[in-house]
């Protein structure tokens, strides 16, 4: 098992005909992901390396049975694209786009939460279940199948930590980038809840960063609902207040959202927090001990 994406994934890519869309969807396909369709209004009937392109998501779903959408369109069109995928009955929408207006995400989030569809992102690297499927831009070659589930607000930091885990012999059930925006479709809590239910996942690594209070809320959730060990990491101890550190959501506002507060909240609930990416892998090795493959 794994979570969110796997052999059952049938992927439709909005923005497939764009440069980035073509490149990354091609990578996903070569990895073994079943990329069934692309959507670009006005380009219906064409194909990209044999993947049929449709004018609407609805037409793509009807013709191919797509159940997962990857949104790869520019920020000003992204909310519309998410709404369209949702309207077409897609169950899982992964939005890679960075720079979506915050008010667009207010409406997207509120609307989607009223239904059953799940949104991952935006401003995220996507979801990778090693050996099964890759939806997004995570460089899959660094990761192998295993028992560590990773959920993170950051892309490259995830690769860094994943790579340190790999060097110690740990693979991953699924790696989920939930995104670096102030409002994202799925929270740490949503994803950790899925890892808790996933038989392949034996340890959960969560990578948080400054801004908001998701990590603090997650600490409470873990204490009440999660039986599997969780190891944490928080980036941004040296970030000054009031400055946006790259990710739109990574900002300490007044005394709110500091790395110290997040690390303390997690530790207070028994979650061990590594102070460096290397320390995260050390703690993981310590927790999993003999269950790590040699």
């Amino acid at each position, binding site marked *: 098992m794994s979570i969110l994406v796997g052999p059952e994934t049938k992927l439709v890519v909005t923005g497939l005909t764009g440069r980035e869309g073509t490149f990354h969807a091609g990578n996903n396909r070569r990895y073994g992901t079943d990329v069934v369709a692309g959507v670009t209004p006005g380009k219906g009937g064409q194909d990209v390396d044999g993947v049929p392109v449709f004018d609407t998501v609805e037409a793509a779903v009807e013709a191919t049975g797509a159940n997962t959408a990857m949104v790869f369109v520019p920020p000003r069109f992204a909310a519309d694209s998410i709404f369209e995928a949702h309207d077409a009955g897609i169950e899982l929408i992964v939005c890679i786009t960075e720079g979506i207006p915050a008010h667009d995400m207010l409406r997207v989030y509120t609307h989607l939460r009223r239904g059953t569809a799940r949104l991952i992102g935006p401003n995220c690297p996507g979801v990778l279940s090693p050996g099964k499927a890759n939806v997004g831009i995570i460089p899959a070659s660094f990761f192998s199948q295993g028992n560590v589930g990773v959920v993170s607000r*950051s892309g490259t930091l995830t690769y860094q930590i994943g790579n340190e885990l790999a060097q110690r012999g740990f693979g991953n059930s699924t790696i989920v980038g939930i995104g670096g925006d*102030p409002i994202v479709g799925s929270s740490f809590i949503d994803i950790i809840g899925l890892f808790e239910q996933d038989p392949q996942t034996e340890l959960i690594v969560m990578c948080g960063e400054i801004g908001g209070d998701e990590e603090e*809320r997650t600490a409470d959730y873990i204490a009440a609902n999660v039986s599997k060990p969780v190891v944490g990491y928080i*980036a941004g101890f040296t*970030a*000054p207040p009031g400055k946006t550190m790259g*990710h739109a959501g990574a900002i300490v506002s007044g005394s709110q959202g500091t790395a110290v507060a997040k690390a303390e909240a997690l530790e207070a609930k028994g979650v061990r927090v590594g*102070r460096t*990416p290397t320390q995260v892998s050390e703690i993981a090795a310590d927790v999993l001990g003999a269950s790590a493959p040699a």
Partner: protein
Amino acid sequence: MDLLEYQGKQLLRRHGVPVPEGVHATSLEEATQGAADIGYPCVIKAQVLIGGRGKAGGIKVAKDADEAEQHAKAILGMDIRGLTVHELWIEEASDIAAEYYASIVFDRSARAPLVMLSTKGGMDIEEVADSDPDAIARLHVDPLLGFQDFHGRRLAFEAGVDADVVRPVGVLLAKLYDAFIAEEAMLLEVNPLIVTSEREVRALDAKVTLDDNSLFRHTDNAALRDPSAEDPQEQMAKERGLTYVKLDGDIGILGNGAGLVMSTLDVVAQAGGSPANFLDAGGGSKADAIVSAVEVILSDPKVAAVLFNIFGGITRCDEVARGLIEAFATVKPDVPFVVRLDGTNDKEGRRLLAEAELPNVHVEQTMLGAAALVVALAKDRERLTA
């Protein structure tokens, strides 16, 4: 993006929020003329993006032309907590019967706009929140429903505003909400929101933060950005499309991906160093982006050593190495560089660097090793130049 008070007031006025009449001035002549146009008494207000203007002497009442000139002269060029005053806003003095507080914040935690109202206006609202949290009425608005009349009434009654202004305060909150949505604000704060002796409700101050990601559809608001008010390095980085934040230290940092760069700053600080900046060269960084980034980092004279921390995903380490080699040819840095390349095409990147034999460039394999080395090099250099 933060707006100056007068820009915020003009934005609110466009949405029907009552604000005092005022005039903008950037010189003593404009200020005295503006005061004469407004009439006396008037208020001369420093326009800088920082709180505590009143305490710093940046807001003064003038009862006649002489006083107006005197205050304008004193405030123009004044330093308020590190910011120089270049602009004034001169407005009619308001006769205040009551001071309230009103705001709408983009509450990311609740994923909804949060409207707040309090009768404890004119003071630091965070202090009120700490000392007397019940004095602030709060209401989250469903973004798909919008602000309804009853929301305004509920807030006004709950906050305990004077009975005769319950309706006008509610109406003002509705207009504030219109402005919040239409202008895609992250924060609208009116402190104080006043009731005049004629029982009129108006916004006496305006603090407005807009969403940078939405400025493409608000070109009027985007044009309000004043690049001269920004840090020179940050301005230079923005022009080159780089994400850069200036910090206080002496170790220049470049990485790819916001999370990895934040983590790099932390690891350098843990190793005893002090980062000079945050710079995310972004995913898929090409050689010319690296050259630009090196120029921005080295334009900060405090930088004594530079750390490149790259974990290649979409970014290819050989491209980063090419960029660095090009940067050495054009910029000719005289500070040591520590380069850690890992991930996509890392071997090729390290080979290119080894072949180029760049002066004072050290290649490290791990993030922790690289951080330790750059801290030691920065300290060595300080010792040499001290």
